[in-house]
């Protein structure tokens, strides 16, 4: 233990103290571990009343750091970590309405609600996100074509702004602030609690079917067919495939199943492995990624494979490996996610995949999904009806970034856009063009005491805190 200045404020439990950067072992970082960032100070809120109400540097709330890029970072600013504010304020087991502090993770939420026959209405591919983060990024899941985004299921929330004011927001109270806060990237204030409507489930068992598709055209057709009958759909694409088999992959579809005995099923206890250290960068390089994709595609021999599994491995296959982001080594990784309006979908998708290959971008995991027509209340919400493509890739050199900029232009030219929660590199001017109308309406709702690395990059083209 080093020598530190006397600090007596912790005589009162839960009081707030500044962490000196040198003491912090876990500097808040994003899941992609790129770009590097260092907050001026980090504060852990043990109670929602600990959220600072007066600031002298831009503030940002931080949950579990599962955003890929810099929406969750505040380089040079102050960060308030919310993960300890994870108490449930009320849970109506009859109606499936739960109100909880913003730091509650979906993992914890499921432990509480699944035994009573309720599930999160919308979940991203990891359960290690907080409710606050799910709202601020208006996350979506495999059932977007049925139920829209997470924000569509938020009944109300509480927002604490840096002027000390507290606002209850819903579709009827402070409706404009509510709409700016959902997908508001944490810029409208600190979300202290959220109330959501849960989804009733008959059991925790999911029926999953996997359909093999030989080409992009086949894959999109299978997706359309599956969306009609299945609650959850998503497709995995072999990014290394070329020519006529470009865009081949597996369409996964699932739905909750009724148990014959009328029970919910036993709690799932799967093994959880963890990546202990940063991997060398060759581990996920072009040859290994290529090999993985081919093996994965050929693992399934027939056209259709049907399995029954627990909801947790169905929704969160990657959570089985803790800190898998370390597999990408020191340079980190990034994820590219865009949405293309439906009419142009297949043509533009093909061009994006080709552009990636030309730029030498090797993606370990590529995922395709069709967004449905339900509109989120969130002003800055990313999903639009159409196809969305998501690619994970290790950070490599300039050609990769240039290929992604060319993709941005392609996406923008057909009226598409990229997702802020995944981004760490889009040009400010490009993002502002993609969200031009939304940004104009969003700006008046931003809390002047709050900011993020992402937002400064977008609005000031990267200029630092003044």
């Amino acid at each position: 233990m080093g020598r530190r200045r006397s600090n007596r404020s912790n005589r009162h439990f839960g009081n707030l103290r500044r962490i000196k950067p040198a003491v912090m072992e876990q500097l808040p970082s994003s899941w992609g571990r790129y770009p590097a960032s260092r907050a001026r100070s980090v504060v852990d809120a043990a109670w929602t009343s600990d959220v600072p109400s007066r600031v002298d540097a831009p503030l940002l709330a931080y949950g579990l750091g599962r955003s890929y890029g810099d929406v969750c970072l505040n380089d040079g600013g102050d960060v308030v970590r919310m993960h300890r504010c994870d108490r449930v304020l009320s849970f109506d087991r009859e109606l499936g309405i739960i109100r909880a502090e913003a730091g509650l993770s979906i993992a914890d939420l499921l432990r509480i609600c699944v035994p009573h026959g309720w599930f999160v209405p919308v979940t991203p591919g990891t359960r290690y996100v907080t409710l606050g983060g799910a709202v601020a990024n208006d996350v979506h899941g495999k059932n977007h074509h049925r139920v829209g985004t997470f924000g569509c299921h938020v009944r109300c929330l509480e927002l604490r702004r840096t002027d000390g004011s507290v606002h209850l927001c819903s579709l009827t109270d402070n409706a404009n602030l509510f709409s700016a806060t959902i997908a508001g990237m944490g810029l409208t204030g600190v979300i202290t609690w959220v109330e959501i409507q849960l989804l009733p489930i008959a059991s925790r068992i999911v029926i999953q079917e996997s359909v093999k598709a030989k080409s992009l055209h086949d894959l999109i057709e299978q997706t359309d067919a599956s969306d009609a009958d299945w609650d959850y759909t998503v497709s995995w694409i072999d990014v290394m495939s070329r020519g006529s088999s470009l865009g081949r992959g597996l369409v996964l579809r699932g739905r909750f199943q009724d148990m014959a005995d009328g029970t919910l099923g036993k709690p799932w206890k799967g093994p959880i492995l963890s990546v202990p250290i940063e991997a060398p960068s060759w581990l996920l390089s072009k040859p290994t990624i290529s090999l993985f994709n081919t093996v994965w595609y050929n693992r399934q021999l027939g056209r259709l494979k049907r399995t029954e599994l627990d909801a947790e491995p169905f929704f969160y296959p990657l959570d089985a490996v803790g800190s898998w982001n370390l597999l990408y080594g020191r340079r980190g990784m990034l994820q590219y996610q865009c949405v293309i309006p439906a009419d142009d979908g297949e043509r533009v998708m093909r061009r994006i995949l080709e552009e990636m290959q030309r730029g030498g971008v090797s993606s370990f995991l590529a995922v395709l999904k069709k967004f449905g027509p339900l509109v989120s209340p969130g002003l800055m919400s990313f999903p639009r009806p159409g196809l969305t493509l998501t690619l994970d890739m290790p950070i490599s050199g300039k050609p990769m970034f240039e290929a992604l900029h060319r993709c941005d232009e392609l996406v923008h030219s057909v009226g598409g856009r990229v997702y802020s929660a995944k981004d760490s590199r889009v040009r400010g001017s490009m993002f502002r063009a993609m969200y031009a109308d939304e940004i104009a309406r969003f700006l008046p709702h931003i809390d002047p005491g709050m900011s993020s690395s992402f937002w400064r990059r977008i609005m000031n083209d990267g200029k630092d805190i003044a």
Partner: protein
Amino acid sequence: MNPSSIVIIGATSGIAQGVARHYAQRGWNIYLVARNTDALAAIQSDLLARGAMKVESMAADLRDVSRHDEVVKGAQQFSETIGVVLIAHGILRNQLEIDYDADEMLQVWNVNATSSISLLHRFGVAMETQRSGTIAIISSVAGDRGRRSLYTYGSTKAAVSHFVAGMRGRYKPLGINVLDIKPGPVDTPMMTGRTLMLGATVETVAKDIVAAIDKRKGVLYTPWFWRVIMRIVRMIPEPIFLKIKF
């Protein structure tokens, strides 16, 4: 059968909240004692949502030893038989923070040692007739040897461990287990702004505590490797130990 009950003293502390959630999931009755009323209310609703059968709380400043009888009485009114008592309140000060303030130094003693020992004793006597249950208290690995940077805090924990070791012998024949919990640094509000060398999460420590209570262990080091580390630390010869700056 009625669900069992647990009494948690210092219920707003990080580790206490972690342990309370385990018992909530088991559907137990939970009695909370701490100073901050708002915080108690938040924890109460959380534990009910997580499955606790019944949760009640008492607001009390535990430094005030004259209120301790009231705490014990409140717990007994809440539940005739007490399954588990967990004493979890405490404050942490590095020696340098209190070196020039004897009053502040004694404050650490009041909270960590005097008030804990008073509660341990009173609960022991109160539970004597029920001939079952567990009395658990959170001390620290810091109590295993006096170090220059932390000897006030360390000695309060040593006092508690010593007291509890004796109590264990007295109460064992009566069917009451007395558990001494010795965590290393844990990522809780108490540790904010301090180095978390080999730090553990609240979840890990809480799980270990619940398992130790179930198995009726006497002393728990959590995480487990602290047992090994502290055995080595205790074996370091004094002349060498005096030269180590930690």
